[in-house]
């Protein structure tokens, strides 16, 4: 088969480009340590969230020095708990699940963004620094009231943080 020289050059450049892309992603995953949401959150019976001690009472818990876990339920059309309060300068792992349909969990203005699927638990770890308020929104269509589904993540100064604050309501 007769392949023109220009074609060959183009082919080589294309392959280099592709390999370059793959390398940057692999670099991001290994060297920079950007982890993808994966299957480690485990599964759950979505019709019986109230029998699960994490999700029957959505809340934030301290699990170690500067380490917190947030159990969040995304349902039509609210997030629980709301607001989610965590102390500044800590590592927070969110466990999010849904009792009804698919939802999205997006902390606006950050790259904390994942799908919530009934039956599955989404596990997502983030670092929080300065005290600040973030909006949370659902970015997967979940029914007629989808556009009203929002919440808040409040990063409070470490000395003002109290556990249990976030499930007042």
């Amino acid at each position, binding site marked *: *088969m*007769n*392949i*023109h020289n220009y*074609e060959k050059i*183009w*082919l080589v450049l*294309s392959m280099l*480009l*592709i390999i370059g*892309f*793959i390398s*940057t*992603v*692999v670099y*991001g*995953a290994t060297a*920079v340590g*950007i982890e*993808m*949401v*994966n*299957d480690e*959150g485990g*599964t759950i*019976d*979505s*019709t019986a969230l109230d029998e699960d001690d994490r999700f029957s009472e959505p809340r934030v818990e301290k699990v170690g020095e500067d380490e917190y876990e947030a159990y969040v339920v995304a349902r039509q059309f609210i997030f629980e708990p709301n607001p989610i309060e965590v102390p500044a300068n800590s590592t927070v792992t969110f466990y999010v699940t849904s009792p*009804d*349909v*698919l939802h*999205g969990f*997006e902390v*606006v*203005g950050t790259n904390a*963004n*994942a*799908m919530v*699927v*009934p*039956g*599955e*638990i989404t*596990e997502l770890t983030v670092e929080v620094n300065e005290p600040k*308020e973030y*909006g949370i*929104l*659902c*970015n*997967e*269509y*979940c*029914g*007629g*009231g*989808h*556009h009203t589904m*929002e*919440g*808040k993540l409040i990063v409070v100064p470490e000395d003002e943080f109290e556990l249990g604050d976030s499930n007042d309501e």
Partner: protein
Amino acid sequence: MSEQLESGAPTFLDKFPDEAAVVRAALWSSFIALALGAVFGLIQALHRTDVLRLIDSTDYYTVLTAHGVLMVVSFTIFFLVGLFTWATVRSFDRGVESIRYTWTWYGLMVAGTLMAVVAILGGFVPQTDISADVLFTFYAPMQAHPLFYGGLAIFVIGTWLAGADYIWTWRAWAAENPDERIPLQGFMVLTTMLMWYVATIGIAIAVVAFLLPWSLGLFDQINPLLTRTLFWFWGHPVVYFWLMPAYLLWYTVLPTIAGGRLFSDPLGRVVFVLFLLLSTPVGIHHQYVDPGIAEGFKTIAMTNTMFLLLPSLLTAFTVVASVEHGARQRGGTGLLGWLRALPWRNPAFTGMMLAGLMFAAGGFSGMINAGMNINYLVHNTIWVPGHFHLTVGTAVALTLMAATYWLWPQLTNRRLYSRPIGLAQVVIWFVGMGLMSNAMHVQGLFGIPRRTAEPQYEGFDFVASFGSVSELNLQLAIGGTLLFISTMLFVTNIALSAGTPKLSGIGQPLSEPLSTVDDSPEILDNLKLWFGIALVLVVLAYALPLASIIDRGGLLGPGVDPVPMIVEPVAATIEPTLGRLAAAVGSVVP
């Protein structure tokens, strides 16, 4: 176009009148879907930007479902089967084996579409319990009316039969021409349909084995991650199913219109074989941020996706080289000076070139989507519609419209009603999409979600790193309006063409490639081999993830109940709508 030239050659209609009728019918179905879809698109563009809200926000999702289904299922695929019927019959130079069979699959596709559309539009009629506000992705456990799933199934069966029709023609031709190479257009049609057979395995299982019986109440639980994964098993390759008609036109029609010849036939075949092999084992890249799927599977999908760039990059080269060749044939000279020798006043040519230009931009934003880690930033934001309105919404849609300006006279023996309107139409589309898609991309980077009737929240505001959100909203709305106008110009132009006088001898033969198939290895044409490898690759990419999903959640799910998408009866939808319309008009015209 050659109408003025009267080349003397017979048109497709002259040679194959029965087939031309089917092609016209399929194209008309496609244009009706496009026009309706554009109405819904305009409503969305105005509603979500808060420029003009004619409907209740709960109805926004009915509109969005209709827009998605009409555009990416009906418009694109009806055009595809019309175009492929033309390309098959033209390139094998023989009529279909049974015109009744051909009408049968077309009829099935129409019936399927009508069922699905009735189910969707039922969402506007509170008196019925028919509704399907599930968007075109219909993720369970949201449940649509069985009519919706049934319609989809019948539509897909129609496309399978269409593929069988093309294969039938090919086999009949091969029996009479045992030693000949498959003609290029036929080859493209066949590889695309083989890819479609592989791809639709996913959606067929999702709909027929799970969603349809579940919506009929045969069982009441479902594994949502399983049906979602099966959806994307189909949902990525369908992207190439939309794109392949545009590629076929770029490879085989564009060079002729440009006055030249395709650079290389074998390279075109290589590209289509690559698509057959690679387009399915990548769907998990739509699920980068899903729970329940291990990171390894996501990485494999990501790697495959990146390699899938290759055929498109090769296409970019071939198309530009062929067009340049055309320009030089027309007397163009210089490093870039040849550009001006091209037939820019021909809407068919200019439309396809503008589509290609936007595809380059869309390819760029697509590479960003494909990077797993950057995906966190843009997943499910309006960036994503910004991206695919460049690809399917322009590279495909604009190419199909532009090609119609060339193809339609071949199917009707009539001149186009107006070439200048055609030229203005493609330019308006380009400008409109430039605005709408630009605004969508930027808004997406600010975190504004897609599929949302009112992206305005009580507890927080989006922070624009430059300009302002309201300015972007305005830009999106203006762009959407231009797109709507452009669509209407297109459909009207084609409709009015029916009133122009009949001509004869306006056929336009396609030019031969510069480098022909004769000097390429025979193995390229071994479709069985490629189909087999494609199946193996799919098994490799999907067996483990699917097994793991079923292992985790069971075939019928870890206790997930159906959530029928019956919108709370919106008290008399019509009246408030009219009221709002009156108010809106009143505020413009005091």
